[in-house]
């Protein structure tokens, strides 16, 4: 198979964007083409999106995007794989090039979720759950986040303070990321110890509090993939895709032998490591899918950075902060950068490229990174894609 790399990246601000969804995706796409130093020559476009039909009353958005930025007659498809749509679309782009069907692929993930009310957005995401055994109850993804957090805390002794420490780290990183949804600082005094905690940081899905959950965001992110054997025509040396792994797990979380076992995360990471020919010790930094902060904790263990239950000590020692042993969510993560679901997986890859190029902003830049790992988590862990990028 041909080696594949990322030659261009683009991103919109995450947050509330009062533009048409396709315009939002067009913006990040054009930024990625500009970054790659090309104006066209795209053979294939993959669009990652989950809610255009349900929320924005728009379908066929890959075709719409191609036409909006005059990329016809490029091939085009939309990839819907829940919150893992972004990394799935990157995987499809990789496969198209590796198989020889395309030389250059544009992958754009986009979502416009704030066009609807908060409870409708929550309900829309809850359609990921089982239509008979989960959804009719009003069960939401944050509800599973709460139940998972309680089970983890009771087994491993994680506390609300540990989660608050991760939230503070996420906000610190997001503050320096010009694309982040959340631009405010957070402090332990304000969200954990302070006298107004119940007002500032109320319980949302017990024991998860407001600062333990990601916001509902609009936004888009794009990458230009290319065959490494055509890399010479781009402005910058492409960042190589070293490994991609994916795995699935039971639709109903309660049917897993161990409720805390995120098997699909572990298997996806193991498959990506095997393809890249490295292990977790070689990873310099990671973007983990922290829609709820407990997921950063649990995923960091499943991908092999820490033993089961060991993330707690790493948080206390600051190992996951910028400058720590293994910085996690240098972008601010879903927690603070934001989570436009279809865009998230592409945005994670965007961050890995930016760090590997040494282009991340001062104060959140990882020192001399070699490999970066992204974990894009669909449903409540029933479909997970892990991607490893390498600087050469």
């Amino acid at each position, binding site marked *: 198979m041909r080696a594949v790399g990322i030659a261009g990246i683009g991103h919109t601000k995450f947050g509330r964007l009062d533009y048409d969804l396709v315009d939002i995706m067009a913006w990040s796409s054009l930024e990625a083409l500009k970054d790659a130093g090309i104006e066209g020559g795209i053979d294939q476009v993959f669009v990652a999106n989950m809610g255009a039909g349900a929320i924005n009353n728009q379908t066929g958005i890959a075709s719409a995007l191609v036409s909006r930025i005059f990329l016809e007659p490029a091939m085009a498809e939309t990839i819907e794989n829940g919150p893992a749509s972004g990394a799935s679309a990157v995987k499809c782009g990789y496969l198209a090039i590796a198989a020889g069907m395309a030389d250059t692929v544009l992958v754009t993930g986009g979502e416009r979720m704030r066009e609807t009310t908060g409870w409708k957005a929550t*309900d829309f995401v809850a359609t990921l759950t089982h239509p008979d055994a989960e959804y009719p109850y*009003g069960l939401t993804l944050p*509800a599973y986040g709460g*139940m998972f957090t309680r089970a983890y805390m009771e087994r491993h002794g994680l506390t609300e303070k540990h989660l608050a420490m991760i939230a503070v780290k996420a906000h610190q990183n997001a503050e320096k990321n010009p694309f982040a949804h959340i631009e405010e600082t957070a402090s332990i005094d304000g969200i954990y110890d302070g006298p107004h905690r119940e007002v500032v940081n109320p319980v949302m899905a*017990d024991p998860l509090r407001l600062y333990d959950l990601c916001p509902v965001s609009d936004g888009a992110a794009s990458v230009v993939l290319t065959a490494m054997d055509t890399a010479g025509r781009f402005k910058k040396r492409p960042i190589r895709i070293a490994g991609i792994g994916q795995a699935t797990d039971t639709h109903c979380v309660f049917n897993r032998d161990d409720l805390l076992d995120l098997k699909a995360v572990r298997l996806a990471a193991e498959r990506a490591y095997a393809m890249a020919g490295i292990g977790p010790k070689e990873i310099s930094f990671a973007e983990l899918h922290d829609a709820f902060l407990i997921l950063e904790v649990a995923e960091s263990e499943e991908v092999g950075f820490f033993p089961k239950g060991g993330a707690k000590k790493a948080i206390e020692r600051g190992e996951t902060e910028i400058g720590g042993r293994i910085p996690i969510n240098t972008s601010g993560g879903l927690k603070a950068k934001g989570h436009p679901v279809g865009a998230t997986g592409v945005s994670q890859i965007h961050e890995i490229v930016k760090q590997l190029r040494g282009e991340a902003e001062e104060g959140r830049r990882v020192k001399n990174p070699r490999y970066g790992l992204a974990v894009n988590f669909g449903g409540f862990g029933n479909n997970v894609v892990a991607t490893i990028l390498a600087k050469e």
Partner: protein
Amino acid sequence: MPTTTELYAVDRNVYAYRCPECGALYYPAPMICRKCRNRRDPSTTVYSDFEKVPLGGPCKLLTWTRIYALPEGIDRPSLAFGVVEFTNGIRAVGVLMTEKPKTGALLEARPGLVRELVRRDCYGLQLFDPSP
């Protein structure tokens, strides 16, 4: 005039499904038995359906939460959920009707109205403290 509940509620029970070939029990219903690969056909046109086994009774609470941001169709300020395991090993999610849930507690699951959507009442498991 019949109420919405009377009009649209067909069956208020919650069921597990038993494979007629090997007896393996499932919730929710699969389309094939994981153990013996026997196919399930809800229409009974080509294959037989799985046997419906009412789900309820004593169960153990494995984990729980109370949420304050609720989706459509729930007319209350918060809602508590739990994952429970029945004595036959089947697990399910249910709405907690107990004030002070505790992981590991023994509860009793009964079918009841858990959500009212437009023209659709949703029945599911409600989880109570066991009867004295």
